[in-house]
C-alpha cells in the first residue's frame, strides 16, 4: 500500500517520463525575425516626450515660422505675465460702473402726458 507522498512521487515521475516524449519546439528563423522586427519597430517609434516636442515645434512653426522655439515661447510668456499683472494692478473702479442690474424704462412704456388745456394749440 503506497502512502500519499509515494503516490505523488510516482505520479510526478510518470508525468516527467510522459512529457519528455514530447519533442522540444524548435524556434524557427521566421519567428525570431518577427520578434526582432517588433523590437526594431518599437525602438524606432518616437517616445511620448519626442511626440510632445514635435507637436510644440509644429505649433511654433505655424505662429512664427522660422523662429527659434524660445522666441514664440518668450512672447507667449510675456503676454501672459502682462495680462495677469494688468488684471491684478488695475483697480476695478477704472473699468466703469456695472449697470447691468438697473432696469431701463423706455419712454414708450410710460403713459402719454398730453395736456390739451395748456392752450398752446
Amino acid at each position, binding site marked *: 500500500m503506497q502512502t500519499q507522498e509515494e*503516490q*505523488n512521487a*510516482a*505520479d*510526478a515521475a*510518470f*508525468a*516527467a*517520463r*510522459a*512529457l519528455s*516524449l*514530447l*519533442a*522540444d*519546439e*524548435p*524556434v*524557427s528563423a521566421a*519567428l*525570431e525575425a*518577427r*520578434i*526582432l522586427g*517588433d*523590437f526594431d519597430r*518599437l525602438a524606432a517609434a518616437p517616445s511620448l516626450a519626442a511626440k510632445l516636442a514635435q507637436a510644440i515645434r509644429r505649433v511654433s512653426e505655424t505662429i512664427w515660422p522660422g523662429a527659434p522655439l524660445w522666441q514664440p515661447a518668450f512672447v507667449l510668456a510675456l503676454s501672459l505675465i502682462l495680462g495677469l499683472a494688468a488684471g491684478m494692478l488695475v483697480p476695478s473702479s477704472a473699468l466703469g460702473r456695472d449697470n447691468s442690474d438697473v432696469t431701463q424704462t423706455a419712454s414708450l412704456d410710460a403713459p402719454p402726458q398730453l395736456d390739451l388745456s395748456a392752450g398752446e394749440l
Partner: protein
Amino acid sequence: MARHLPKMLSLARRMLSDRAEAEDVAQEAFLKVWTHAARWKPGKAKFETWLYRVTLNQCYDRLRRKPALELEAAAHVADPKPGPQKALEDTALAAEVERALASLPERQRAAVVLCHYRDCGNIEAAEILGVSVEALESLLSRGRRTLRTKLAHLKDL
C-alpha cells in the same frame, strides 16, 4: 530572447496544442514585455517570472477565445520522423501524451507544463501562476494523477 524563447514556445505549444498560435503568443509576450518594461519592478519579481506570467496570461486569453479544445488537433505532432517503425511508435506515443495533456483543465495543465519546461521551484511556479504554493501543489498533484490515469494503458511508459 534566445535564452527564453525555446522554453516559452514549448510552454505555449503545450498549453494551446497549436504551433502557429504558440508562435503568436511568444511574439505577443515579447512585445508586451518590451512595451510595458517600465511596469516591471526589479525588487518585486524576477524578470523570468514576469515573462512567463505574461506568456501564460496570453495563453489563457487565447484558450478563452476558443469555443472548445480541439482534441484532434492536439493529437497532431509537429515533427514526425519518417522511416523506421520505432519512430512511428514514438510519434503515436507522443500524440497520446499530447492528447491526454490537452484534456487536463487549463490550470492543472499550466502547473504540470510549467514545472516540467521551466524547471523552476514550486515558489516561483506558484508566483507565475498567481496562486499559493499549496494551491500549486494541489494542481500539480491532481494534474499528474489524471495524466497517469489517462495514460495507464501505455506499456512503454
